[in-house]
């Protein structure tokens, strides 16, 4: 029998209150469900990453290289020289606390080390110790600490508990971006072979076949033809997907989850129906078959390597410009890295919609337009006919995916589209949308099933806002423009706001899209009746 009094019983042993944040120690065994499995040997070897081996975070010995501290120290030094932003982020924080309560993982878990300021401090304390005079002399008194194995273990735990969503950076008066701090910490851990499989495997697959799932060109084609045949069988609508066509006007880049996993597949079919209807001269590439880039969660070199295929395929196929689908972090890469890493290109033209004549000035440099910009422009110019009543069974809200919103500033286009294709649209509370949006808690490589407990914890703030509109307005569908969201939000909704389904924006566009010569539509893309079941019975 426990001798504890109820008041003692309730004390949470996260990080006992009297203990300072500087003392590291993570018990991985008792915290299963809140961390991800390490990178598999095959993927690590394939990519030539450091220290391939079998290991588990629960092991006492992580089988690190003998001089691992030196490797990290040198890597840190190199990056401080290379990235001025890192030095600024390490030096500038005044611990004002404005970011402290903005992280979904902190809000959901209550663990203070998930406060962005303390997350950065995990790295900053080593910076102080190794690279500042005060830290070298005064050590802990100046907020420095030595890089011990326990500290490294803590890095692994907490830097793979940051989805690099950048919500915290919105509130920092100095613009410190903890997501970038996490990226650097992950790069440093990569140098000694401390990484997770949900990132390493997609990276290796992507490097080999062009997409996260390792799908080869013939299977890519098969998959797409299969989805199109399903559409034909279900709704009697014929679309002709175009793959690897030389000389097409537009290259279309999508996240692989859109052609391989529900509910992304409906959005994928939505894109194709739209292109078919407007007669766009486009092609997909069976090699650049992935918009996502898990290099973003690995290292800058890997981002560059994986991103290169997009311009490469644009050149090989001889297209004029590029449209990108509803992918999340792909847009962060396109917007913030592609142009300087692999661009600017001299063989593409400034994007101009062949249907409306609109020139996309914002994409003058990258030559890549977001499909929501493209579609919103079609609607604004009345180039497509829409019947929003076909989405009447849905009461819709919109989740701003972290990257398109905070990295790209794409707030209005998806909303404009949704308001044109649905009759019932409701916003979640102001401080949970647009640049304040709450993460799905499964981005940046954390959307694996072994990490489900942490994902659901971090999903609380989004789920809570969703539940609010579900209860206040009977919202039953949350739309979003990110493939990772479409995979990670269904479990989140099931736990925190049951009864709400998840969709992409172009799934709803396609439901409403009136196509030439179509027969009367009675079903939506999911093969369900257009009317809510209760209505149906009263109608008959």
């Amino acid at each position: 029998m426990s001798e504890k009094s109820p008041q003692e019983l309730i004390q949470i042993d996260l990080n006992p209150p009297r203990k300072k944040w500087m003392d590291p120690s993570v018990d991985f065994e008792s915290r299963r469900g809140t961390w991800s499995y390490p990178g598999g040997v095959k993927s690590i070897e394939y990519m030539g990453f450091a220290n391939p081996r079998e290991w588990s975070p629960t092991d006492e010995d992580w089988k690190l290289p003998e001089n691992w501290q030196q490797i990290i120290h040198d890597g840190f030094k190199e990056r401080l020289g290379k990235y001025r932003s890192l030095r600024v982020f390490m030096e500038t924080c005044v611990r004002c606390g404005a970011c402290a309560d903005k992280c979904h993982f902190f809000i959901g878990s209550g663990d203070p080390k998930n406060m962005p300021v303390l997350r950065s401090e995990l790295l900053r304390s080593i910076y102080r110790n190794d690279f500042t005079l005060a830290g070298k002399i005064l050590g802990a008194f100046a907020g420095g600490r030595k890089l011990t194995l326990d500290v490294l273990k803590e890095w692994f735990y907490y830097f793979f508990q940051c989805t690099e969503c950048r919500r915290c950076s919105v509130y920092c008066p100095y613009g410190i971006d903890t997501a970038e701090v996490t990226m650097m910490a992950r790069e440093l851990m990569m140098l000694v072979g401390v990484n997770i499989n949900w990132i390493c495997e997609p990276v290796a697959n992507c490097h080999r076949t062009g997409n996260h799932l390792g799908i080869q060109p013939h299977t890519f084609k098969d998959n797409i033809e299969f989805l199109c045949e399903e559409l034909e069988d279900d709704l009697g609508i014929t679309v002709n997907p175009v793959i690897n066509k030389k000389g097409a006007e537009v290259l279309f880049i999508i996240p692989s989850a859109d052609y391989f996993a529900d509910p992304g597949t409906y959005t994928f079919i939505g894109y194709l129906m739209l292109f078919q209807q407007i007669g766009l001269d486009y092609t997909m590439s069976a090699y650049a078959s992935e918009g996502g880039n898990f290099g973003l969660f690995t290292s800058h070199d890997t981002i560059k390597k994986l991103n290169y295929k997009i311009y490469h395929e644009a050149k090989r196929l001889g297209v004029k410009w590029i449209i990108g689908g509803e992918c999340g972090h792909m847009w962060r890469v396109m917007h913030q890295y592609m142009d300087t890493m692999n661009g600017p290109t001299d063989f593409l033209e400034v994007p101009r919609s062949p249907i409306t004549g609109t020139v996309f000035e914002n994409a003058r440099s990258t030559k890549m337009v977001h499909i929501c910009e493209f579609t919103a422009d079609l609607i604004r110019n009345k180039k497509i006919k829409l019947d929003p009543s076909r989405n009447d069974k849905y009461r819709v809200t919109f989740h701003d995916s972290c990257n398109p919103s905070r990295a790209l500033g794409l707030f209005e286009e998806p909303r404009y589209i949704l308001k044109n294709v649905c009759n019932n649209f409701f916003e979640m509370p102001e401080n949970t949308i647009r640049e304040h949006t709450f993460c799905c808690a499964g981005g940046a490589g954390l959307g694996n099933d072994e990490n489900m407990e942490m994902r659901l914890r971090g999903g609380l703030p989004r789920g809570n806002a969703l539940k609010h509109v579900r209860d206040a307005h009977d919202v039953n569908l949350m739309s979003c423009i990110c493939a990772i969201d479409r995979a990670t939000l269904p479990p989140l909704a099931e736990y925190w706001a049951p009864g709400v389904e998840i969709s992409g924006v172009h799934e709803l566009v396609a439901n409403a899209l009136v196509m030439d010569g179509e027969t009367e539509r009675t079903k939506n893309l999911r093969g369900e009746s257009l009317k809510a079941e209760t209505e149906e019975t009263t109608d008959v």
Partner: protein
Amino acid sequence: MSLNLSRDERTKMVARWFDLIVDGYPAETARFLREQSDPFANPVGAGLREELAPILDWIVDGGDGAAVESALDRIVRIRALQDMSPSQAVSFVLILKDVHEEIAADTTAGAKGKFDSRVDGALLIAFDVFSRCRQQVYDIRVKEVRNRSLKVMERLNSWREERAGGPSTT
């Protein structure tokens, strides 16, 4: 038979109860839970703020079991995921006994016994809710693997078989 607790006593009890629960968290977290009043910025604090009073009312006055279950669900659903043992997750109900002893004017053994046994009732409901939430987490995890891509793959494979007129080899 109903218990006798004035509005004033109840208000004091809820405030004290809230404090004790919040102080179970690390100090930095406790400060946040207490001070951030926006329900969307602080869903954990908001859940406690809004649901503790109806739970106490149910314990004192009895009434609709479904309503108290949903109030408990809002709190337990969160605690079922946080870094706590099952006993910690539901122990917040139990500490109400101490709160009652500290604040209630009627300190007779009869009143105390009655109150405590009603708390035990709430604790049992909380434990049911906890088990349900944990089961849901496991179910979600299992289901996710299947939902993600297996469903499409199964459909795709049978389509391939049909096309090839026999079982697919890829």
